[in-house]
């Protein structure tokens, strides 16, 4: 039993290796950037921008042609030495804030960013109040309850 399992292992490894190799070919986006630094920035940008056509996919994941066109645009801008901020600004100028999966902090989105903090603060205040109230009640309860003693 053990022997057959061991024998299978190379086969499993071969399949995994083949899958790993195939991943590059099967990926939606076959683009490769000339340096690891550019590659990193390219991947980050294509993963944080929305495919406007499919709307719940990132540019990196979307197989539609428009997403491919926008990825080319990003690649060309990065190769031309543009900054990440310039790429984002280019996209927002054309497609609006909706293209950003991570909304910018603006007057319109302020509540979106601040609400969790505000809610946390409110929760902490309520919790504090409840705990203080309980603490105030506690000393009165210190006399042990003796259920078995008849009055």
């Amino acid at each position, binding site marked *: 039993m053990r022997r057959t399992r061991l024998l299978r292992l190379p086969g499993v490894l071969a399949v995994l290796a083949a899958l790993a190799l195939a991943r590059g070919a099967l990926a939606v986006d076959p683009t490769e950037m000339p340096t690891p630094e550019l590659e990193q920035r390219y991947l980050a940008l294509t993963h944080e921008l929305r495919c*406007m*056509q499919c709307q719940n996919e990132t540019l990196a994941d979307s197989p539609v*042609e*428009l997403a491919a*066109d*926008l990825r080319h*645009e990003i690649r060309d801008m990065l190769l031309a030495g543009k900054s990440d901020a310039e790429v984002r600004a280019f996209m*927002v*100028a*054309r*497609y*609006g*804030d*909706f293209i950003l999966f991570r909304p910018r902090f603006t007057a319109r989105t302020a509540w979106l960013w601040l609400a969790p903090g505000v809610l946390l603060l*409110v929760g902490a205040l309520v919790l504090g109040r409840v705990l203080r109230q309980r603490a105030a009640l506690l000393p009165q309860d210190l006399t042990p309850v003796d259920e078995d003693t008849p009055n």
Partner: protein
Amino acid sequence: MNRFLLPMAVFVPLVAILAIGIYHAPEKDIIASPLLGKPAPDFSLPDLADAARTVHAADLRGRWYLFNVWGTWCGGCRAEHETLLEIRRANVLPLVGLDWKDDDAQARAWLTQLGNPYAVVAVDHAGRTAIDYGVYGAPETFLINPQGLVVYKVVGEVTHDVWTREILPRVPRAAFPGT
């Protein structure tokens, strides 16, 4: 009684805010164009009728026109074609086409078979100009004023209703020919 006062004071406004959000939400499939009120992006692209000629966006200034993004691969474009022909017959403002990621020969055949509503059609094989206009599907149509500003955008088909209720009222009567 008192212990429900605070939660309700939070909960009721929250429901109100969400209700307003839902009822005032624009049509969810349509993404407002950041181009509205801004200059229509420039382009210089080949003319579909004659690839040797170039269509310049700058040459279109000085009058109202509709900029219609289409392609023979696009079903909605086929559906709106009748309305585009109607707009051409109305002779109020010219239609400028952007043939987006299309085959030139097929596009010319389409216009020959179905009728050509366009004053001129620019060819965008690479899709760069479509990106500049923030196009994310065809058909899309932009109403552009004489100063070259985008006044209105239609995402999806231009129907007879869209033409008469949304586009025409935005064009001043003085811009109509013969007035």
